[in-house]
């Protein structure tokens, strides 16, 4: 048991800190949440700076510990989030890197790293959510193209994406996990229609994507035809690894701000509220240790995060909701004012127990894959 970093890791941290201290004050102002082209330009601009400074591929090539340090330090310094680069850097890119041909890697990876192209994800469908393998978007072979029809949902950044990592059914007769293929679809192809969806927080964070006879070259398929389910699982395992490092750091900062606010507005005198904040401190301290544990395990196991990510995701998503419920108690009636800090975050936190695998699905994964309990209905 050891929680110390190597001299090389300490040096990486020091260099990164120094660089962040230099570049962050020179960043342009953040665009408004509704300004999608502005957000795209801002997020890509940040990725370009990372690229020029040699940090662009930290999500791919760096050791899990270096990735942890990168995410911790960028969050502490208040650097921009991965934003519109999320799918490219954390889903589509790693999939192409692992499963693509040399030509596919050369075509798609450099623009992701340089901050030239945005990717979105076309996995879920109206009738295929937790049960992703039930997806029905159909791809019919026609010469050198697939002709794709169907609809996708919960697609973040669809309005501003250049590419979509798309799961389609290429063999409707095969057992459902074996008839799926993974395609890179250009978002400007004829027949693609994007309809933004408004979340309960009021903003259009994701969209529906309708596909009507969209032609996608067969050369854009990554992996074999009908092998898309396996190809996708390579991608999804990345999501539960270090994806939440920055957020845990951010939650701990929010907790300190909550304590300060409660102290200022007098609610600190309430023993029950104080105890609750103390417990949340324990919760997020432990979640940080769980992150370190998972990273250290990934380090031993060759870099791919395992099912331990489900344990983290379950605990974290509920802790985040508890945190913002406590924030509402600190604010009192002001928690009803969207202009106050934390109020929008409270609304957004409601998605955490649903997105990227609901808590119920995560519990199935933990019970069946870690504890070895039988599958059932």
């Amino acid at each position, binding site marked *: 048991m050891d929680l110390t970093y190597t001299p090389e890791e300490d040096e990486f941290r020091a260099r990164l800190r120094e660089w962040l201290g230099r570049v962050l004050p020179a960043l342009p102002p953040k665009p408004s949440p509704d300004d999608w082209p502005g957000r795209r330009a801002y997020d890509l601009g940040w990725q370009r700076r990372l690229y020029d400074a040699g940090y662009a591929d930290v999500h791919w090539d760096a050791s899990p510990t270096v990735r942890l340090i990168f995410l911790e330090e960028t969050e502490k310094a208040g650097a921009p989030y991965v934003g519109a680069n999320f799918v490219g850097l954390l889903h589509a890119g790693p999939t192409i890197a692992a499963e693509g041909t040399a030509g596919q890697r050369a075509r798609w990876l450099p623009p992701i790293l340089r901050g030239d192209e945005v990717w979105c994800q076309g996995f879920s469908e109206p009738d295929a959510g937790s049960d992703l393998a039930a997806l029905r978007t159909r791809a019919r072979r026609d010469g050198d193209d697939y002709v794709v029809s169907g609809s996708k949902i919960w697609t973040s950044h669809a309005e501003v994406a250049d590419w979509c990592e798309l799961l389609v059914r290429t063999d409707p007769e095969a057992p459902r996990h074996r008839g799926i293929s993974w395609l890179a679809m250009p978002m400007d192809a004829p027949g693609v229609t994007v309809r933004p969806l408004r979340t309960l927080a009021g903003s259009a964070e994701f969209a529906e994507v309708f596909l009507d006879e969209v032609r996608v070259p067969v050369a854009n398929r990554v992996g074999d035809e009908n092998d898309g389910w396996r190809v996708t699982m390579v991608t999804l395992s990345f999501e539960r690894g270090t994806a939440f490092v920055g957020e845990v750091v951010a939650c701990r900062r929010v907790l300190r701000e909550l304590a300060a606010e409660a102290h200022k507005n007098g609610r600190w005198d309430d023993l029950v509220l104080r105890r609750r904040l*103390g417990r949340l401190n324990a919760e997020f301290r432990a979640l940080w240790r769980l992150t370190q544990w998972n990273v250290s395990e990934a380090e031993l196991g060759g870099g791919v995060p395992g099912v331990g990510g489900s*344990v983290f995701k379950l605990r974290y998503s509920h802790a985040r909701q508890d945190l913002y419920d406590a924030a509402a108690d600190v604010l009192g009636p002001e928690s009803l004012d969207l202009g106050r800090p934390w109020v929008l975050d409270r609304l957004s936190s409601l998605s955490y127990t649903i997105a990227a695998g609901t808590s119920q699905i995560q519990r*199935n994964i933990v019970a069946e894959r870690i504890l070895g*309990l039988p599958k059932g209905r």
Partner: protein
Amino acid sequence: MRFQLTEDQRALRSGVREMLARRFGPEALRAVLAEPGRLDRALWRELGAAGFFALRLPEARGGVGLGLPEAVLAFEEAGRALLPGPLVATHLAAGAVPGAATGETVVADVGNGLVEWLAEADVVRGAVAGAVPLRSVDPLTPLHRVPAGTGVAPVAVLLTAAEQLGSATRACELAVQHARTREQFGQPIGAFQAVKHLCAEMLVRTETARVAVYAAAVTAHPADIDTARLLADEAAVRGARDCLQVHGGMGFTWEFELHLHLKRAWVRTHRAGPATESEENLAAELLAESA
């Protein structure tokens, strides 16, 4: 950063586990239940000989010379096996009270005013005047109350959390074993999501407590110890409760060992003082850091 156990630490853990399985298996547990309040002195000396009490004492002073992480692993195994006796008090007395390190002397501690194993102890640290016996809810832990406590050392809080972690781990294993094998409605009850999800939550609580306890063993930071304590208490008490629920009527019997885990977990939550204190400490830390 290698947070996982080293080879030596894994060997130590399995060594303690094997010794306890050999010396304190189900029959030994039944035997002490038949004669509650008696401490097995021979076992105590064996623990001493194996280095359980002298684990953190420097080699120059006749100890094993290991650190808190190793002690935490040993106490986790003790908790898992339901090993009775004032283990933490004796461990902390090693080097200070003659014979404690070797297991010749059984040491109890007044702690927070709740004394475990007072009558069986050779030495009690702290004033015991006015001690009143309780009809202890845990048949394997005789209890006395004394008017004034002397406080609890942070290391004692951490080792208690390690015992809680062992209990939580065991409760989760028992629940999963039962859920896999017990059939109702024509299938193992673990195939039902209502049962499966109880088990999953037990594991989540246990593994979250585990990293908190291990991290506190590495840093010995007061806030890490408070964190470990709160999470381990929760994992042990709620784990035992859920394990009981998964076992249905069996869980409510005297014969099944689970009730002993629950009762011991309750005792341990009081050994470390009120949970409120840990919560207040952690709340105060937030305020101090935000200033």
